[in-house]
């Protein structure tokens, strides 16, 4: 067995132990160490050299990255999640004889959910298109797709209700985040749709349980809104810039110069 491989495996064991212990600081340190060591393996993407231990090494690397994804969910670091996911992705797309991982679908679904939370709908669909049709049947992915559909339809209550039916415990965190995304979306729409709303209506609309939550939300996210006489006044979005003036003088000059040039043409 390759000493390097053994070393990585041992470190990974330590990492897993720390992960179970929820000692995330140790995890982070070990993970970085693991990642650096992994760059020394030629069999991993993007080189894919067919070394004797290629399959094992790749399986191990995939395992490490999958754990890295979970770790970043646990520490609620969306950037790290994105990074780790992209580094993991080649193991799913370019398998090179690798056995499919059991964690593949949950992680793909997690990524979809992340995109949904970040309101990156275009990328969400791009990812979706890349998935094989069989994967769409998987509950984890199906969950994300349904959420997206509800989200698009505006059936926000269904989105919020889906929290109870998460297919994987790791999704819960994202469902919380999703609620906020939904609220932002509603706020954006209300702003456009109404001049003002009574506080009561606004609270219902924005799915808050108490007026305090609403007031706090407005203070944090929309300081330009005004609460007055039991009503929330939305500042109208700035008028779109007036139509540009027709650059008549420039046009005239240009036309005249064309005419002059035409006369010169032999």
């Amino acid at each position, binding site marked *: 067995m390759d000493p390097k491989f053994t070393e990585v495996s041992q470190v990974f064991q330590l990492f897993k132990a720390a992960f179970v212990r929820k000692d995330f600081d140790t995890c982070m340190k070990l993970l970085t160490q693991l990642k650096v060591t992994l760059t020394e393996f030629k069999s991993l993407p*993007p080189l894919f050299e067919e070394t004797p231990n290629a399959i094992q090494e790749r399986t191990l690397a995939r395992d490490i990255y999958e754990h890295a994804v979970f770790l970043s969910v646990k520490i609620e670091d969306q950037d790290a999640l994105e990074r780790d996911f*992209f*580094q993991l992705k080649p193991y799913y797309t370019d398998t090179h004889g690798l056995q499919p991982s059991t964690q593949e679908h949950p992680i793909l679904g997690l990524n979809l959910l992340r995109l949904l939370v970040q309101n990156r709908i275009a990328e969400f669909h791009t990812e979706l298109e890349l998935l094989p049709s069989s994967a769409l049947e998987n509950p984890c992915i199906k969950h994300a797709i349904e959420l997206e559909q509800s989200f698009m339809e505006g059936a926000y209550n269904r989105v919020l209700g889906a929290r109870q039916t998460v297919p994987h415990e790791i999704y819960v965190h994202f469902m919380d985040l999703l609620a906020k995304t939904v609220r932002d979306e509603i706020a954006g729409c209300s702003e456009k749709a109404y001049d003002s709303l009574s506080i009561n209506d606004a609270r219902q609309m924005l799915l808050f349980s108490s007026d305090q939550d609403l007031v706090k939300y407005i203070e944090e996210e929309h300081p330009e809104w005004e609460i007055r006489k039991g009503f929330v006044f939305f500042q109208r979005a700035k008028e779109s810039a007036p139509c540009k003036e027709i650059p008549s003088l420039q046009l005239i000059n240009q036309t005249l110069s064309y005419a002059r040039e035409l006369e*010169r*043409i*032999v």
Partner: protein
Amino acid sequence: MAGAATMVSSAGGLLAMLNETHPALKLHALSNLNAFVDYFWPEISTSVPIIESLYEDEEFDHRPLAALLVSKVFYYLGELNDSLSYALGAGHLFDVSEDSDYVHTLLAKAIDEYASLNTKAAEAHNESATVDPRLEATVERMLDKCIVDGKYQQAIGMAIECRRLDKLEEAITRSDNAHATINYCIDISHSFVNRREYRREVLQLLVKVYQQLPSPDYLSICQRLMFLDEPEGVASILEKLLRSEIKEDALLAFQIAFDLVENEHQAFLLNVRNRLPSPKSLPSESVHSGSPEPGSVQSENTTTTEDVQMTNGSQVDGNTSSPDPREAIYAERITKIRGILSGENSIQLTLQFLYSHNKSDLLILKTIKQSVEMRNSVCHSATIYTNAIMHAGTTVDTFLRENLDWLSRATNWAKFSATAGLGVIHRGHLKQGRSLMAPYLPQGGAGGGGSPYSEGGALYALGLIHANHGEGIKQFLRDSLRSTNVEVIQHGACLGLGLAALGTADNDVFDDIKNVLYTDSAVAGEAAGISMGLLMVGTASEKAGEMLAYAHETQHEKIIRGLALGIALTVYGREEEADTLIEQMTRDQDPILRYGGMYALALAYQGTGNNKAIRQLLHFAVSDVSDDVRRTAVLALGFVLYADQEQTPRIVSLLSESYNPHVRYGAALAVGISCAGTGLSEAISLLEPLTSDVVDFVRQGALIAMAMVMIQISEASDSRVGAFRRQLEKIILDKHEDTMSKMGAILASGILDAGGRNVTIKLLSKTKHDKITAVVGLAVFSQFWYWYPLIYFISLSFSPTAFIGLNYDLKVPSFEFLSHAKPSLFEYPKPTTVPTTTSAVKLPTAVLSTSARAKARASKKEQDKTNAPKSSGAEPSAGKGKSIDKDEDSMQVDSPADKKAEPEPSYEILTNPARVVPAQEKFIKFLEESRYVPVKSAASGFVLLKDLRPNEPEVLTLTDAPSSAASNPGGSVTGQQSSASAMAVDEEPAPPQPFEFTP
């Protein structure tokens, strides 16, 4: 790369890794991205800001790698500027030897950038201009690599472009074939280096390198030195060669001298001559011969250098018993080389060649003469012009002598040009020019009784005879100019003086002419203006300002026009130096001065193909309000582009379809000028439709231009030549054709057969040096639009197409060589037979008689011609040479007859001296077992021959026949003042010694 199969399908993973905190991960990502950037650049391009920030991160260790990656991405995005700046940041990671599109493109970009920065810095004369050192380092790496890889041509090209003379020198010295490399270098420095000063620097460097070579190529060095105008260098090389023990070295020196003469740079040659040290064998002699020479350096006009040489030479010859034989040999050689440098030898040999090989077809002239109406003076004088051009330099004036009655119909200015025509016919006849013209020259006081027109013409003729070699005649012309008040004579004298003193910048002469100018007479003033320009050609002297001021002052358009052209001539070849003056002229209110500005552009940038000049000319060609200026602007393009002939038809093709006839005319002449003598197919195709234009003067220009293009092109190589000859004949014979195009056709037939069919129009010498006389000649010729007598200036641009081999004694030995092509490709056009078309317009009875007479005349002519070399009188020592001439003639006569029977041979043996047309040069081969070996392998011009069997007796050809034949016609043309000729002969300086004079 192992192929796409083992590749990731996305760079997303790697890009994500860039955001990791650990530097090792970043490095891993970067290096992998760098490897895959060719496939994933679209993906990476979205993350460029991240990579850029890595590059800018001072703490990151692998900034160059990041820079390289960004550079590559920018390259793929087409942002070459950004790409370059990051590539420079990549430092050594940017591998110049990598064979990829990326590296090639960026290197090209880097070199362009570097070159343009350096050029800008050099042009602003700002040495401290800041060039990015990284850029410089990159370019240097590239240059070094080229040199190491042996790609010297690339290295040279880049070094020149980037103004890195140090690298240029390195490339040349390290190349394995230095001579070839230098020649390449010279070629590109002439064709691609636009700025004159910089070209000088390059050439200076080349000369330096040359001199360091173990076996220097003296021929090339001297050519470079000539361009640099360093007569001292040439003189010292010549002296070294002449002092050598080996005979070949002396031959080489002679060859150098001939090559220098070919470039027609009179002032330079004079300097070289004066700097050649005299032999110092005898103290008394050296004192004697030394003293006149410094005098001639200071004022060339007072002492005629010819005289100096002659005394010098004869004294040395007489002293063969001097103690030091080596000095004696040197003295003998130096006499010879002085003779060559003075141009005498080449002019004399050319004259002999043109005389002996004259193949002009008098029947053509006769046809023209008969078909031209008596009263039509334009066509009448056009015929006289044509005769002169056809016989330019041959000394054959049979036609004039046979048609004295007809000639006498020329009056006034026609008489002027008829007399001047003699000058063209006798061009180069330096020794007897004056005695030939004596009957017509002003006779000092009222005693002459000749008409002022013929007197003026005679002075002009003297100028034409002595063009660019006028040391001997200058004084006489000056005297004539001063002693007359008749403006016609002044006109002739001014032109003559300008021609004789071409480019000498002689202040005394200039003042004389200026006095004429200030009389404010239109006729004399015009000639004075042109003459001043001729005198000051290419000097860019401040006299131009004076001329410009007077042009503003005078009321006479003619004077302004003369001055405008004169000013243009002064800036000949000065390129950027002339810009201020050009600007001044082209902005002038007066269209005539703007017109002069066009000529100034043409002449200052002649042959350079300079883009700026072309752009300016094209601008004026379409935007000026005056037709004259537009016409000239187009015409001027011909001068700017003549070194790159293929371009001209392309550039003016659009203009040749202009609605404005003046522009069309200009386009025709531009093509005629720049493609003269090439027979370029595109040029002919462009001119063909113009020869049947709706406007008469366009037809005229097109016919003349066509003749210039087709000169010496045989029908066998381009069938359109034959068609054109028939077209000319048709136009001349057609009664309803208008005068303008008829005149064009008459002149065209003259140009087509110019100089006894043995000359072509050449603006570049064989060494790609511009021939100043030729260019100036054509420039003034193109003025014939306003003043017909200027047509004669075209004779200045004629250069004989001959191979003349010379032995050590500068005699022409009999020597054979091979032209490896079908003889019919380059043979003389067949002599015309009885014109058949004339019969159509005449009455049936007349048909018989005229055609019979013409036939008789034609056959007689034929006979005359074959007998000509024999019967033309004294040919003293040419027993064997004559027989060779005869052989050649019989071959010429036989070949058409035999053609039906047997297939044409694929080669032809030519005998020295032979006619070798430019297109033929590449087929010339020297026979291996030949007795003589040429010093340099040139296929035309004067070539010195090395004698491998010096002990055998030599057979010489080409002796001085024309001098004897032409000694008397001068008096007999009009028969008057025959006694005067004797008088004139008495005044002549002592007859030159190498001639055998048979009265």
